[in-house]
């Protein structure tokens, strides 16, 4: 591991130890926070008991659906908006203010449209994830060097060949950023939607535990969500570094 990685691991570990110390000695009241070791133990018991299986299956399948829809439709939307400058000029300010709108407020509307099932939550995850993909696609397409397009013209590539052989590879780093953000936002959208509004999934389980003053379960689930987010991030980070290295090679 690099020096920075070691220092980073040390920092995180130090922070956990500090929390452990503060909660064990009672500086932080047990009603406010339980020791990290107790969170881990509670999470372990929860995972083994199988009590989380249904919630996990529900949340993960919703996140996966929202992510897939975000990427496919977001990419298509980005291509479309990029091809139409007039549309782009109108959509730009909307995209810039997009993430200030709390989409959860549309949940009742979505329930009225889709019915009381998984789709309102998938739609919220999609609403969060797709805009990031659209923005990243636009950024990527904007930054394709003009000389590459000229090379495509010189070689008399057709429209499809130009897109697949020239434009997509040139825009890959930005598209990857879009993929990363779409996953993160789908994750956030689905869990937050469950937390605030729905009656199932991991987000709901946290809200339920909070309402029932069940601190052990609540912190165990929070630890689980945080660990999941970090794991997803780290995986994508490693993959991205790998892609960057490969691109640098001649």
């Amino acid at each position: 591991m690099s020096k920075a990685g070691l220092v980073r691991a040390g920092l995180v570990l130090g922070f956990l130890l500090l929390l452990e110390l503060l909660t064990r000695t009672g500086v932080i009241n047990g009603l406010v926070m339980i020791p990290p070791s107790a969170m881990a133990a509670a999470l372990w018991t929860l995972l083994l008991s199988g009590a989380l299986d249904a919630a996990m299956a529900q949340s993960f399948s919703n996140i996966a659906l929202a992510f897939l829809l975000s990427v496919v439709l977001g990419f298509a939307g980005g291509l479309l908006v990029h091809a139409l400058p007039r549309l782009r000029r109108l959509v730009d300010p909307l995209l810039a203010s997009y993430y200030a709108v709390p989409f959860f407020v549309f949940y009742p509307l979505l329930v009225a449209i889709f019915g009381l099932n998984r789709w309102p939550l998938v739609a919220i995850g999609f609403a969060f994830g797709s805009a990031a993909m659209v923005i990243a696609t636009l950024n990527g397409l904007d930054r394709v060097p003009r000389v590459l397009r000229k090379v495509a013209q010189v070689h008399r590539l057709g429209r499809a060949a130009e897109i697949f052989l020239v434009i997509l590879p040139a825009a890959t780093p930005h598209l990857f950023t879009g993929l990363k953000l779409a996953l993160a936002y789908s994750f956030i959208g689905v869990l937050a939607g469950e937390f605030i509004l729905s009656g199932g999934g991991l987000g709901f389980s946290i809200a339920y535990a909070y309402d029932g003053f069940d601190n052990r379960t609540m912190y165990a689930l929070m630890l689980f969500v945080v660990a999941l987010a970090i794991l997803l991030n780290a995986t994508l980070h490693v993959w991205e570094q790998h892609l960057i290295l490969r691109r640098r090679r001649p």
Partner: protein
Amino acid sequence: MNGTATRDGSGFQRALDAVLLLAVILAAWQGLYASVGEVAITSPLGTLAEIEQLLRSPVFWGNVGATATALAVSAAISALAGVAAGLALGFHRFAGVVAEPILAALYTLPKVTLYPVVLLVFGLGVSAKIAFGVMHGVIPVVLFTMSAVRNIEPVHLKTARMLKLTAFQTASTILAPAVVPEIFTGLRVGFALTLLGVLIGEMFASQRGLGFMIMNGMNTHDVPTMTAVVVLLIIFAVIVSSLLLTLDRKLHRRG
């Protein structure tokens, strides 16, 4: 001149496009209303009437005041703390390398699910809302500021040394113009997320503010009030973001 006219379109065409977009949105809204009905959404005209009533009600303005106060305080904290931390992490390269993945991970956390902790620590009330707004808004400011500092061209700093500029001259004539545009982008993104954080905070645990009005409307099936507040919020968010985006582009173009 002619070139910009064809690229940006004439003023008339832009106005026409904006009207068209608005018409499409209104038509979609009306269509949605026709298919799902009063239980979930109010018609555009009905919402307009409701907005007119809201704008005359003192209760509404009290809630606006509560949200505005929380938003102003948390946006100020996010901006100051974010820029300070970003500058420090940007100039101290190793600290930046250590911190960046941690910040990125924090950024992608579904922070809503951590709201109970904020409530347990800060208690129910305005400080929890502010803390939640800062949690959402501060990280993009840090990340953008950090990358702005890192992207300063070394040759610019060398030029400053060659010209024997004082520290203040270097900061005002070299560093500030180099980093301000990107920091501003960070502040713009941070502001939008701060608004989101404050609103979610109000939705989940508050007795005042626009987020509370929305949540209350949802719980009591007061669809007209809910729709009206949501529409007002969207209009506010779009106007503020458009203004910030215009400024942002001006700053970037100058460089």
